């Protein structure tokens, strides 16, 4: 097998924010992220945000699928099936980047065909070639991406900022 160590940047912990013209990208470290699936989860979670809904507060819930939500900074829950819903802790599984600044949306449009004119019940989409969960929170945009792909997303965002 070929040693490709030199071909790949060593992943950083992304603690230093990335700034470009009209955008700043910072990493948000959540206390908890939980996947909850149930047939009636959306009925029970009326505030679960899709696109272009705005998630509010420190603790918020995003709609992922017809029967699944992502709870961010919610209460501690036990993993498994409790007779009503399936729960999995995914706190370390999704890295969160927050994009602030007047050109935040312009940056996102580099990686996805997205606009407020195309609303979507689910917050999951493909952006920059990766599967991400994208939501608005207050005046910012938040991207949740699989931890294993966070380096790829961050590098893409950094590249795009230089071209904007």
């Amino acid at each position: 097998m070929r040693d490709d160590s030199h071909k790949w940047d060593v992943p950083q912990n992304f603690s230093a924010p990335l700034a470009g013209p009209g955008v700043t990208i910072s990493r948000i470290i959540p206390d908890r992220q939980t996947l909850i699936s149930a047939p009636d989860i959306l009925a029970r979670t009326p505030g679960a945000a899709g696109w272009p809904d705005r998630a509010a507060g420190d603790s918020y819930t995003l709609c992922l699928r017809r029967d699944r939500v992502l709870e961010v900074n919610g209460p501690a829950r036990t993993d498994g099936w409790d007779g009503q819903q399936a729960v999995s802790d995914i706190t370390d599984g999704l890295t969160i980047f927050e994009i602030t600044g007047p050109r935040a949306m312009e940056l996102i449009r580099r990686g996805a065909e997205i606009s407020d004119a195309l609303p979507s019940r689910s917050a999951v989409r493909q952006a920059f070639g990766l599967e991400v969960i994208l939501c608005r929170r207050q005046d910012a945009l938040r991207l949740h991406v699989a931890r294993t792909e966070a380096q790829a997303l961050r590098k893409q965002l950094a590249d795009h900022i230089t071209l904007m």
Partner: protein
Amino acid sequence: MSGTRISKGGLIDRSTLLRFRFDGRDFTGHPGDTLASALLASGVRVMGRSFKYHRPRGVWGAWFDDPNAVFNVTLKGDELPNCPATTTPLVDGMEARAVNAWPNAESDIKGGLDLFHRWLGAGFYYKTFMWPDWHLFEPSIRKMAGLGAVDGKVIEGYVADQLHDHCDLLVAGGGAAGLAAARAAAEAGQAVVLVDDHATLGGGLYQGDEPVEGEEPRQWVATQEAAIRAAGGRILSSTTVYGIYDHGLAALAEDRGFARAPRLWRMRARRILMATGAMDRPITFADNDRPGVMSLQGAAEFLGRYGVLVGRKIAVLSNNSQSTPIVAHLRAAGAEVIEADPDEGTLRALDGKRLSGVQIGGRKIDCDTILASGGLTPTVHLWRHAGGKLDWSAEKAAFVPGAAPQGMVAAGAANGTFDLDPALAEARAAALGNAPETVATGYRIKPLWPQPGAKGRQWIDFQHDVTLKDVELAARENYVSVEHLKRYTTLGMAADQGKTSNMAGLAAMAAIQGRPIPEVGTTTFRPPFVPVPMELYHGTRRGQLVNPLKRLELEAQHRQAGGAMCEYGGWLRPGWYGPDQETAIRAEVLAARQAAGVFDGSPLGKIEVMGPDAAAFVNFIYYNTISTLRPGHIRYGFMLRENGLILDDGVVARLGPDRFLISCSSSHVASVELMLESWRQDGNDPDRIFVHDTTPHWATLTLTGPKAQQIVAALDTGVDLDDFPHMTLREGQFDGAPLRIARVSFTGDASYELSLRAGKAGALWQAIMAAGAPHDLRPVGVEALSVLRAEKGFIMVGKDTDGETMPHDLGFGVPRQKKKAAFVGDRALHSDTANAPDRRQLVGLTLPEGALPLATGAHIVTTGPKPRSIGFVTSSYFSPTLNRPIALALLEHGSERMGERVTLRHMGQTATATVSAPCALDPEGERLNA
């Protein structure tokens, strides 16, 4: 020296001088010039050489319709090959060189090739260099052919910005029709984007310099632009709509300056209005390729936009009415213009060293420039990209837009409406979705097409040197379909993609065969409309971002430990630790067998299946019976496709009565999850089964070897290791986080797979290293693990299986015979193919003492005069544990051949081996509990 700059007029800034060089000589121009206009203004005529015969060429058109002037351009050390001189804006300091010419375009040493033209017709190279082998000649011919040379240097930062956008109405083309349409739509409240490829809008309005709706053209254009912007419309200039794709998606390339990659706009438009104008057609006559023979429209553009008069004594050969205002404009600028009917007699360009006149039948006209206009052809490329139809208009002697593609409309000259006022009315109506009134056209044309059999060399495709005789040859050899004609003669395949040649080519074919033009038809129009760099398409997806690998939480720790990071199934993982691969793998294998090894198993899938129907569902998904698995226990099994072939293997653990954890192989997590989800929703009750892929939340470190238990015992996990049999799972804690310990083994030695949330993996790694130090623990990479598992005969799906392997080929035949419940792929395991006696089965190969390891992929062959492959080596290593080579293979009748000596062949080498059981080490499995 014929072209001159007139003292006023045009869109250039005469107050600023730009210096540049062409073919080693110094020139000047002004902001607003292109390379071609600045050269013409300086009197330069010859700007290139043709592709095949190296004939001297001047510009034909003034914009994207010029096939002749192609330059290598250098600016501040950045060099770009194949820049069209007519569309490259002049920048101070540019150094341009004509491609395909040496030492320069004026006196090219290969110009002599033209003398042999009689023998160099269409298909010459293929016909001539057939014997003994085309490949013998190909390198030198290829070297001779081609246009600009790439200097091989990568331009720093040459990366295309790409973005998505949307609008109600996209107007392609900022001429009169486009401006009128964009304004009407914007003022009606539509979100409008107007796109034009020139830096200055106005399209063809500057050609005749006639007033538009009472205003001077520049003023009228400025008024429209201001109105569009005031109504909220957007204008993108220096931007080309180069392709229309499905569902209203338009691809736009925005020029960002020389040596900067263009920007790609993926513009989704509810409606697209094509206002792309029309192009002048060449007239086909003898020596019509001579420098000084130009398009009438092109000359008008040079005059109107750049203030360049292309000649002093001009013969205008036009068969249509568009020439009237242009001739007036040329005369007003000071040219002497002689108009002649090109149909009056046989035409021939006359020249010695310079163009000296034109022969029309018996008449000779002295002139320094011939401006030809064979009629206007609407620029319908985008219409055809979108699937729109074309109609033949006999009245206009042109293909015009017919049945419209969904969401698209054409207006102005692009729609065959060549007169200004009707074009404006049509554009405004189209912008608002209304049907325009039909106004009789004032455009008059007397059709004039190539005449087969005519004397002299009559050019059809200027850049690729395709003449009327080549089209006649193609017809004689039965390449009569336009698509065949194109490929046989390369007509229309040059950099301009037939913008000037296609109409003449298909009209010539129509005339040769005596068929009407619409019956012959056009070739297919495909994006891109103009050449665009490859960078436009890939954007930032280059280098590490072409196919980014998934990354481990502990990558920094692996690198620190000397890990060589390699690509395995979409992940970047440590292959081995240390500078020398071979030494490292051997040391890692021996440590894992004699003491302990730790490897990062984080990429292994962690897919949870939960819910009341989870047990029945997992039992259906797996080949093996899973329903009988008790909580806390683990089973190894296969997942199949419905055709019975192996999709994946791995272990499944039951975490609770209605909760399973599927540990699929590292590279198959996505495909397994997709398969589970599709079966869940199709054929099962999705309200009773839930599938969570939690892989990225977890990190897994596996300890294996005789000392593994002692090391795990030294960690503070709260798990009792004494009563912890193989193939069971326990839950404990580490550093306050839940920890799962699974006793599964891919090495054959006692193993402990420790999984916990990724954020705690660094602490666990550190603790393991500290606890393992007294026991000679070593980190083990993927390569050593591959050897360890091969010693045990454990397979890797996709390596030791192929597109024909079923589980019973690997010695796992019991569920096929005994499992009662339905499972994916069950029926396929009893097909004639599955039951065939000669299936390839997994075996081990034992080599004679001192032999070298076999090549992976080596074929096992029958002996005798006609050897046949009966199998192949799937895995082969030197086993440090056994101190001899080991191998796994798939072999016909494998299980019946134990002990048989077989012959192997690879790249001309022969080897022998003895067929054995796949497992070469500890077949009784005693090490598992050692």
